[in-house]
């Protein structure tokens, strides 16, 4: 299709030579159209590959766990005992452990990530300190998780142990609480950087409207910036949650790895991801291996469901 902008304006009421020239230009735009088509098809193929990949992962997980699904049935999900030696497989302690650590980590990290987002997006977008802070926060995401796990084990856990004996619970140190703490640190950058870019996109004319009515900075943030960016902030938090649900290494190192249902948030436990990582190499029976893969499937589905719920909430925010 030749759009009007392909034809130079001066062609209108112009000499035959000029029209000839313009036709030459349209020839060039046919080439552009071909490039455009190639580009569009490339994008479509790339997109399709992503869809096939996701569906493929899910189908593989489902197929590989067929043995476990057929022998253990749906009660696999809510059975409370996981004892591979006696071929008893119940995913509930790990499902609970995953949800507990992730949401606890989210609760701990949100105040930090939102504060960083507001500080960098609204208060101090420029200068050496914000630049330093921005890089530092992004670096948090770049540190390998095994290093977090190691640090948590060596530094964090002793403090948690002291804290636990101070408040009078069994001072194990490792457990749900320690895992949540280290997870909280690890997921801050996701919500913080998405939130920061959202906040810096708030149109200045809206902020000025509030300032001109006598609002303070905090009031501008509360009544203009946050309502305007709530869906973006929420999307960032969702991204953090997704990361927390799937994090394996750091959690495995400090969660205590027991297959029991945690009695409280300080007790040791296990998450789906860390069970898979820990026991995959030991799974000597087909049912055991299949049960672990089903655990992967459940983790996958939990992530999908939480993401869908999150998308619904974001939609509601945006239509608001």
């Amino acid at each position, binding site marked *: 299709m030749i759009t009007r902008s392909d034809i130079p304006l001066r062609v209108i009421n112009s000499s035959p030579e000029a029209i000839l020239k313009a036709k030459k230009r349209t020839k060039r735009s046919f080439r552009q159209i071909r490039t455009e088509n190639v580009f569009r098809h490339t994008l479509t193929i790339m997109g399709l590959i992503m869809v096939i990949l996701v569906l493929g992962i899910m189908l593989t997980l489902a197929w590989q766990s067929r043995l476990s699904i057929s022998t253990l049935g749906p009660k696999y999900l809510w059975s409370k005992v996981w004892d591979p030696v006696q071929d008893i497989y119940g995913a509930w302690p790990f499902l609970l452990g995953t949800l507990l650590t992730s949401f606890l980590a989210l609760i701990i990290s949100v105040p930090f990530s939102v504060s960083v987002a507001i500080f960098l997006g609204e208060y101090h977008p*420029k200068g050496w300190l914000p630049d330093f802070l921005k890089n530092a926060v992004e670096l948090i995401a770049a540190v390998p998780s095994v290093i977090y796990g190691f640090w948590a084990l060596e530094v964090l856990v002793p403090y948690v142990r002291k804290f636990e004996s101070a408040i009078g619970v069994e001072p194990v140190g490792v457990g749900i609480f320690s895992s949540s703490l280290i997870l909280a640190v690890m997921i801050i950058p996701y919500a913080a950087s998405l939130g920061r870019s959202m906040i810096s996109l708030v*149109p200045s*004319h*809206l902020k*000025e*409207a*509030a*300032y*001109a*009515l*006598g*609002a*303070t900075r905090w*009031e501008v943030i509360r*009544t*203009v910036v946050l*309502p*305007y960016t709530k869906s973006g902030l929420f999307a960032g938090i969702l991204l953090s949650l997704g990361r927390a649900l799937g994090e394996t290494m750091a959690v495995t190192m400090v969660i205590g790895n027991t297959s029991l249902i945690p009695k409280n948030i300080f007790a040791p436990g296990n998450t789906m991801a860390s069970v898979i990582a820990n026991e995959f190499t030991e799974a000597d029976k087909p049912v055991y291996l299949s049960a672990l893969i089903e655990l992967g499937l459940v983790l996958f589905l939990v992530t999908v469901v939480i993401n869908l719920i999150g998308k619904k909430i974001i939609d509601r925010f945006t239509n*608001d």
Partner: protein
Amino acid sequence: MESTILKSRNFNASFGTNHVVKNVNIDIPRNHIIAVMGPSGCGKTTYLRCINRMHELIPGATSNGEMKLNDEDVYQMHPIFVRLKIGMVFQRPNPFPNLSIYDNVIAGYKLNGIKLPKGERDGIVERSLTKVALWKEVKDSLNKKGSFLSGGQQQRLCIARTVAMEPEMILFDEPTSALDPISTSTVEELFHELKANYTLVIVTHNMQQAARVSDKTAFFYMGELVEYDETKIMFTNPKDNRTQNYITGRFS
């Protein structure tokens, strides 16, 4: 003798090293409409934003000199009180998109944490919307979002939001440059109504508008206040050559 509401003496404003408002001296009389005109980049908008201390919100922006509202130094007051006394309407209509029409009008009270009984709030909303000739058009859709209104209605809503705070002065930064001709004339008619209660300072690109609506006109050029006089005199018999050149269209 008319009383002066705002007085500037040797007022300067800069962005970093860029000196954009130079030594401005001006007396603005109460309940008058003052038009501020001049070519792009002449410092007129910057000067306007200095009056209610919006200028300082931009990083690197500085100002000095005397700016007195009713003999009280604007730069000694807390900026929030300044902005409550001197309202502002912007170039682009900017109602809060997440608030209803009703809440937009009352937004200033909400922002400042002033709690009012419902009856009083309703009164303010109705009065303010009536003042900007918007009440009849929106009285049945007060709970709809302000962003559903047309551009001209949105701009009047923004004026209503400012009027609701009962300021002494209202600053307009090219208030009709984003509006169609019909909305423009509605807003211009409004200026005459508002004059009875408020002092209006209107920055405009549009010379005809300055001539139509204002009592006095100030002409800014290259950051200086070149001439400031009765609008009639400014447009018929300007004293300065530069004013003469500007109004005859020799530069713009």
